C-alpha cells in the first residue's frame, strides 16, 4: 500500500496503483462495451436508415461508434481493481482519476449475470453492491468466470476476516453447497400458466402495432391468405358468428398464456436457491443467467405472496426486500424472488430460514370489525356518485350496475377486513392483507427504521388509526407494512412497543 508515499509526488509519475496485484478487466470488455454502445444506437440507427433509404447514412452512423470505441479502450486500459487489506479498491480514468475504496464489510452483494455471449466466451458481468443508493458501487464489465469466482471468494473471505470470525469455515464451491429449492420444469410451466405477464406483452405489442399503423382500417379491411379464405366460407348467421367469436377468444387466451410461459421461462429457467456463506444464493434465467447472493443480515422484509389460483393448488411465492437498489430495475425485481412458486410448507420453511427471528406459529390479531361498515359506506358513496347520478341523467340501466356493485362491495369489504391482521412474535412484526392475492410479510425489529401512527378525520370519528412501519429499501417492496383500522389506543401502544423494540437493537446495513 503506497500510503507512506510523499504527498508531493508529481501527477505524471507511473501509477503506483497499477502494481501490487492490481487486476484488469477481461480483454473481452472492449467487445461488450462497444456492443452496449451499438445496442443504444440500434433503435435511432434503424429509424435513420429506414427514413433515409440511402446507404451513405450507414457509413455516417459508423462515426458514432468512434467515441464509444475510444471510451471503451480508455476504460479497459485504465481500469484496475485490487484487494486491499480491508477494502476493495477500484481505480479508473486517465485524465480524471477516480479511486474508489469499498470496505468489505459494506459489500452487500456480488452479483453476476451472464447472457448467452458471456457464457460462450466464459466471462461474466460482475456488480459489487453496497446498501446505499440504486447504483452498484462498482460494475466490472467483464471478468473471466475464474476471476469472478475469485472476486466472490476473496471478498467474502476478507469480509469474514474483517468481522473477526475466523472460526467460520471457508465457503464450499457452489456445487457442494446445499441446494434448498429449485423450480422444476413442471413448476415453471405452472408458474407461467398462472402468471399474467402475457397480457402485458400483448398490450405492449398492440401499442407498437398501433404506432406502426397496423390497425389502420384502410389496410386491414380485407383479410387475405388462408385466414381470409376460411372466413369467407363461414356462413354469416348468428350461431356461426358466435362460435367464431368464441374460438377467436380462446385462441387469443391460449396465445396470451403461451406468451406468459415463454416470458416466465426466460426469467426463471432452472431457478435454484442455495444456501451460501451467511446467506442465500439465487440463480436463474435462460438466456441471461443471473446469480446473486443475499446475506441474511441484509434481509429487511420477507413476503409470502399467494394469488387466488395459487391458493387453489396449494402454492405460493416468496420474496425478500433487501436494502439498496431501485424499484424500476427489472433485474432487481427478479432477483428478489427467493422462490417464485413452491408448495406452501416449503415456502414457510424457507421464510423461516431467511428470517429465523420471525419464524414460528403466528397468532394473528384482527383489526377493528367496525372497519367493515366504513369500507361499505365508502363503496356505497362512491357507487352512488359513479352510477346513480348517471342513472338520473342518462339511463335507468346504470341502476342495474349499482345493484350489482353493492353486493360485490359488501363481499369485498367483509373479506378485506377479515384478512387484515397483525402479529408480534419473538423479534418481529407480521402484517397480512389482500383479498384475492394474499400477502403476508414479516420484519425484524432491528430492521424497523421509523414507526408512524396516522389518523385521518374519518379515523378519529371511529376512534381508529393506521400504523405504518418504515424500513430500508421498501421502495422495492410490493407489500408496505401498514395496518389500517386499528383501535386508536391500540395503535398508540403498538407504536410505543415497536419504538422501544427498535431502539433496543442496532441497525446494521
Amino acid at each position, binding site marked *: 500500500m503506497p500510503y507512506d508515499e510523499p504527498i508531493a509526488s508529481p501527477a505524471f509519475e507511473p501509477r503506483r496503483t497499477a502494481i501490487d496485484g492490481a487486476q484488469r478487466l477481461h480483454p473481452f470488455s472492449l467487445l461488450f462495451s462497444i456492443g452496449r454502445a451499438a445496442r443504444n444506437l440500434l433503435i435511432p440507427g434503424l429509424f435513420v436508415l429506414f427514413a433515409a433509404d440511402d446507404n451513405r447514412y450507414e457509413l455516417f452512423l459508423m462515426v458514432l461508434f468512434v467515441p464509444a470505441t475510444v471510451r471503451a479502450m480508455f476504460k479497459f486500459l485504465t481500469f484496475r481493481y485490487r484487494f486491499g487489506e480491508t477494502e476493495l479498491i477500484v481505480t479508473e480514468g486517465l485524465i480524471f482519476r477516480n479511486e474508489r475504496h469499498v470496505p468489505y464489510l459494506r459489500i452487500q452483494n456480488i452479483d453476476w449475470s451472464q447472457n448467452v455471449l458471456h457464457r460462450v466466451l466464459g466471462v461474466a458481468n460482475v456488480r459489487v453492491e453496497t*446498501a446505499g443508493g440504486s447504483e452498484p458501487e462498482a460494475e466490472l464489465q467483464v471478468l473471466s468466470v475464474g476471476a469472478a469466482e475469485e472476486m466472490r471468494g476473496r471478498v467474502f473471505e476478507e469480509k469474514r476476516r474483517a468481522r473477526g470470525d475466523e472460526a467460520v469455515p471457508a465457503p464450499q464451491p457452489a456445487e457442494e453447497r446445499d441446494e434448498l429449492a429449485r423450480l422444476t420444469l413442471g413448476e415453471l410451466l405452472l408458474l407461467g400458466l398462472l402468471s399474467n405477464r402475457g397480457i402485458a406483452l400483448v398490450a405492449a405489442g398492440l401499442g407498437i402495432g398501433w404506432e406502426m399503423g397496423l390497425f389502420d382500417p384502410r389496410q386491414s379491411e380485407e383479410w387475405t391468405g388462408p385466414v381470409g379464405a376460411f372466413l369467407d366460407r363461414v356462413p354469416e348467421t348468428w350461431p356461426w358468428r358466435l362460435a367464431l367469436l368464441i374460438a377467436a377468444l380462446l385462441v387469443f387466451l391460449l396465445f396470451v398464456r403461451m406468451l406468459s410461459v415463454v416470458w416466465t421461462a426466460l426469467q426463471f429457467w432452472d431457478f435454484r436457491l442455495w444456501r451460501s456463506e451467511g446467506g442465500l444464493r439465487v440463480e436463474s434465467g435462460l438466456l441471461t443467467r443471473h446469480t446473486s447472493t443475499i446475506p441474511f443480515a441484509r434481509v429487511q422484509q420477507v413476503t409470502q405472496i399467494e394469488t387466488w389460483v395459487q391458493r387453489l393448488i396449494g402454492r405460493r411465492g416468496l420474496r425478500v426486500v433487501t*436494502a439498496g437498489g431501485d424499484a424500476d430495475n427489472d433485474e432487481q425485481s427478479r432477483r428478489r424472488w427467493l422462490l417464485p412458486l413452491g408448495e406452501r410448507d416449503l415456502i414457510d420453511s424457507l421464510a423461516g430460514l431467511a428470517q429465523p427471528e420471525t419464524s414460528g406459529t403466528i397468532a394473528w390479531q384482527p383489526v377493528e370489525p367496525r372497519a367493515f361498515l366504513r369500507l361499505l359506506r365508502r363503496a356505497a358513496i362512491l357507487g352512488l356518485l359513479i352510477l346513480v347520478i348517471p342513472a338520473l341523467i342518462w339511463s335507468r340501466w346504470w341502476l342495474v350496475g349499482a345493484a350489482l356493485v353493492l353486493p360485490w362491495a359488501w363481499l369485498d369489504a367483509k373479506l378485506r377486513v377479515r384478512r387484515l391482521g397483525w402479529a408480534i412474535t419473538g423479534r418481529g412484526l407480521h402484517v397480512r392483507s389482500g383479498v384475492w392475492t394474499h400477502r403476508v410479510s414479516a420484519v425484524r425489529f432491528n430492521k*424497523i*427504521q*421509523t*414507526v*408512524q*401512527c*396516522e*389518523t*385521518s*378525520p374519518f379515523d*378519529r370519528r371511529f376512534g381508529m388509526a393506521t400504523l*405504518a412501519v*418504515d*424500513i*430500508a*429499501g*421498501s*421502495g422495492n417492496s410490493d407489500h*408496505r407494512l401498514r395496518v389500517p383500522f386499528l383501535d386508536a*389506543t391500540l395503535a*398508540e*401502544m403498538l*407504536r*410505543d412497543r415497536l*419504538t*422501544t423494540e*427498535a*431502539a*433496543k*437493537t*442496532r*441497525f446494521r*446495513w
Partner: protein
Amino acid sequence: MDPAEFGEEVSSRPAEESAPEGAWPAALDRSAAGEEAEETPSIADGVERRVARESIGLDRLGGWITLAVLSLGGGVFVAIYLATGAWDPLWAGILGSAWLLLTLPGLWFAHVWPAVNWRHLSFRADERGIEIRRGILWRRVITVPRSRVQHTDVSQGPLQRRFDLATLIIHTAGTDHATVELPGLSHATALRLRDHLISGGLDDAV
C-alpha cells in the same frame, strides 16, 4: 439551559388527542433523568413540548409575503383590465369576486393557520429517540429511534435566522421517511436535540 427554554410543555390537550396512559414508560423517563441529571438538564426527559412560539410569527410573515405577492399580482391584473376602459360589468364582477374569494381565505391562511398549526406540532425526546406529532386534519405521530438516525441537519433560512429559529432534519435509512423534519425550533433547542440524537444510543456501546 433552563428546561423551560426548550419549548412550552403541552399541558392541556383536547381529550380526543391525548395519548394513552403509559405510552412512554415512566421507568424510561426516570432512568433518563437519573443518568443525565448533572448541571445541564437533558432535553430527553420524555416531556412533550411545542416548538418555539416565535415560529408562528415566522410562518405568518411567510404567509403574508406569499399572500401579498399573489393578491397584488391578481389585483394588478384586475386593475389593468378595468383601466382598459372597455370592460363589461359582468366580467368585472366575476374577476373582482374571484380576487376577493382568493384573498379573504388567504388572509385567514396567512394569519390564523400558523397558530393552529403550532398548536398541533409538538415533539418529545427521550432515551429511545424522538417523537414528532403533527398535522391538523390528517395527524401523524412518528417516532425515530436514536439508533436509527443516520445523520442530522440543522438548517436555517434567512428569515429563520432573523427569528433565531431552525429546522431539525433527521435522516434515516428508511424509504418513506428517509428524512423527518421538525421546523420551528429555537436554534438552541435544535442543537440540543441534534446532540441528543447523534450521541447515538446503542452505537457507542456496541
